[in-house]
């Protein structure tokens, strides 16, 4: 038996270590378009102590280590660029603590967003978290690690903004707590009023440490939830519409979608407005306020509310939204990927036109999705293309379209969300050199041997 396999078996047990071709194949790629690279080993730890032992082993042997949740980023963030060990975290999926009064939950680093969603539904019906639209298998830790977004992002910001504490295994193997949990067993703040050290880990894709526990804030869950859709045929009106809607502070979530197919959606921008309440009166009042906010656009015939049938409402109100996943099979091809830059909301018209242009240029089916972040401070605009995994030419065209979309996003002041290795390199090149140097110093200080998810945030 391989010496490293033997050492890993001693840590986690034989059933949970593999260097087989099958695991090396599967864990060497994700559903997106990034090139594959196989790990040497895949390991399924069950405890913090096991992770610490694996990290120390990797350090001694100078082996790369890539922590992984469900591997759903689509941008290759857990493809082990230099082989080594992939740590599949999903055996660590316990929900450790819910503090109902202080509204937070602490979960292990491999807990799926689906499991947390179900747990709260069952045991804490008055609490919720910002459920992302990624598949239910996506983990809470990976979601905050990539600055994911969810149903409460319009109100509360990125899901990573809702972190209330972290437990991290450092590249040295030491265990570190971040936030109020560093001082007590309370997980209500990730930093403030003390220095917020969560930034040393969030957004680093595991390149600075492994999240073994995550605290996230919970929010009131209202008894009722509904959705309405305002449509306009011009992208130029969208920023103004969003400004008025966010001003009301009545919406739970605001998304926008535009797509050429099916034809009923063609030519329009659909602003999807979710709202919640504890009574029919509250729902009616919020709806009235939201509708009135757009009176001017309706009067000028720049847009109007569409009738949303029960079937469509059911699809839109679904959490997590399974229909988001089915976009992958529009071409009967099992794939989609998006460049999803974070941009100011006034860039919506430009992004929308660029997406139209790219779809024509590369002959691809597309879907534009945008999600408002933190009451309109920014938005995530997804240049989404669906592709046929069995069609090499289409894969190449999709890669080119995504690359061009990313270039465009950067040119209009956007920030890459969950950037690919290429996008990370471009971002580092463009950013203020002192900022890039600071990032380099942080990485070198925390991970001097460069074993943690190597390739990510390198090349500074």
């Amino acid at each position, binding site marked *: 038996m391989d010496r490293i396999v033997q050492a890993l078996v001693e840590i986690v047990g034989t059933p949970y270590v593999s260097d087989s071709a099958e695991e090396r194949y*599967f*864990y060497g790629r994700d*559903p997106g378009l990034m090139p594959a690279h196989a790990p040497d080993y895949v390991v399924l730890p069950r405890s913090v102590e096991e992770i610490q032992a694996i990290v120390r082993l990797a350090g001694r042997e100078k082996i790369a280590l890539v922590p992984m949740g469900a591997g*759903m980023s689509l941008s290759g963030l857990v493809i082990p660029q230099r082989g080594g060990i992939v740590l599949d975290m999903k055996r660590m999926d316990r929900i450790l603590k819910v503090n109902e009064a202080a509204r937070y939950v602490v979960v292990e680093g491999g807990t799926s967003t689906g499991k947390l969603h179900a747990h709260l539904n069952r045991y804490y019906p008055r609490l919720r978290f910002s459920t992302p639209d990624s598949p239910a*298998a996506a983990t809470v830790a990976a979601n905050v690690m990539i600055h994911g977004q969810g149903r409460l992002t319009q109100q509360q910001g990125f899901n990573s903004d809702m972190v209330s504490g972290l437990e991290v295994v450092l590249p040295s193997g030491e265990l570190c707590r971040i936030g109020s949990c560093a001082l007590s067993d309370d997980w209500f703040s990730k930093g403030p009023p003390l220095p917020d050290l969560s930034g040393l880990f969030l957004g680093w894709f595991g390149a600075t440490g492994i999240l073994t526990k995550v605290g996230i804030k919970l929010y009131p869950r209202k008894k009722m939830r509904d959705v309405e859709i305002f449509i306009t045929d011009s992208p130029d009106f969208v920023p103004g519409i969003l400004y008025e809607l966010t001003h009301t502070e009545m919406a739970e979530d605001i998304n926008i979608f535009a797509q050429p197919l099916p034809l009923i959606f063609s030519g329009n921008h659909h602003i999807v407005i979710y709202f919640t309440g504890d009574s029919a009166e509250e729902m009616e009042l919020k709806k009235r306020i939201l509708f009135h906010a757009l009176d001017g656009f309706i009067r000028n015939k720049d847009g109007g509310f569409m009738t949303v049938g029960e079937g469509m409402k059911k699809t839109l109100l679904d959490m997590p939204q399974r229909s988001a*996943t089915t976009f992958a*099979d529009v071409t009967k091809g099992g794939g989609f990927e998006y460049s999803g830059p974070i941009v100011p909301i006034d860039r919506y018209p430009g992004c929308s036109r660029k997406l139209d242009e790219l779809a024509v240029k590369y002959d691809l089916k597309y879907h534009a999705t945008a999600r408002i972040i933190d009451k309109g401070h920014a938005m995530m605009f997804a240049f989404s293309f669906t592709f046929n995994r069995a069609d090499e030419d289409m894969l190449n065209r999709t890669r080119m379209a995504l690359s061009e979309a990313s270039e465009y996003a950067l040119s209009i002041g956007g920030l890459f969300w969950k950037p690919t290795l290429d996008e990370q390199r471009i971002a580092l090149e463009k950013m203020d050199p002192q900022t890039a140097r600071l990032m380099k110093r942080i990485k070198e200080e925390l991970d001097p041997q460069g074993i943690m998810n190597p390739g990510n945030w390198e090349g500074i």
Partner: protein
Amino acid sequence: MKYAEILHRCFRCGYCKFTLDYENFNCPPYRKYRFDTFAPGGRMWLIRAWLNGEIENSERFQEILYSCATCGNCVEHCAFTFRENLVDIFIAAREELVNGGRIPPSVRDYFKAISIHGNPYNLPAAQRSSWAADLPVQSYDGQEYLLYIGCVGSYDERGRKIAQAVSRNLIRAGISFGILGEREPCDGNEVRVLGEAGLFEYLAENNIALFRQLGVRKIITLDPHAFNAFRKEYPAFGGDFEVLHYSQVLSRLIESGELKPGDFPVRVTFHDACYLGRHGGEYEAPRRILRAIPGVELVEMRQNRENALCCGGGGGNFFTDILGGEGDSPSRIRVRQAVETGAEILVVSCPQCAKMLEDAIKAEGLDDKLVIRDVGELLDASFREN
């Protein structure tokens, strides 16, 4: 390979391995192994890689393919339109392995036993009806129903008890039925799902010919696996029979008043057999029987009906035991779920489930907390103890 054109359409999103509410992973091999390769998405990607020559047919690959319990949870929960084909795809991949001649030894031995002896136990056909030795069960000779027992009910000690109980209930209700005894062939359901399409075709054609020769028109099956084969697979070979699972018959007899269960005060929970529930669409007949027994309190497990966790015996695993074993094998998880309900009896409707779960109770040391009873046995007991 059949369905090869679908493989690349899997996005590996993972919905297939959950329950509908996402509370738990519900794919039996994934629950045991926890590598994504053992989930339906992993299997889809690996079959494609194998067909493309990117990986080889290894022991690990065989383990991944043959640990699938064909339980249909993935069919129930996959987000895509091709979900109906998922189990068929995994069976088709097994067929390719069989055709290539490299399969797990336990699967090979199963095929050989069926081929040579007509049953997986390597026992003589003459023993097939010994379960009925002390019962006034007639040999089939034109009665209204053929009671098809199957290999597990005929040879396995646990299955034989269920066959006896079900027969007593039918006799009690005055149902006109007979059995084939030593003439009874293997239904072939596991032969098919393990990938021996040729042997299955042979079995199906011969069985259909036999049934026709005997004038069989209505079949009651003891085993949901046979129920599946006769109902869903035999029509492709011209076998159009009216097929019922015994729970459906007993449920009707109770509703019509022909069976009046006696008091049997006990708290029970019910485990849905995959080939009766998800594959057969029958979730209610066994529950109707339980509700009709005075004193029975039915408490559902969290994972029930479409979300039931398979016992791990499906897909041929009952015979090959690839999925059994350690603490997180599906059957052991399932009995722990049953204990959580506070039930004294875990009721099943399949001899394979009965055996799998009874073994799991022993392995978990839960003998003092839980017993397994088939719904036919429970109904029978309600008469015998009154």
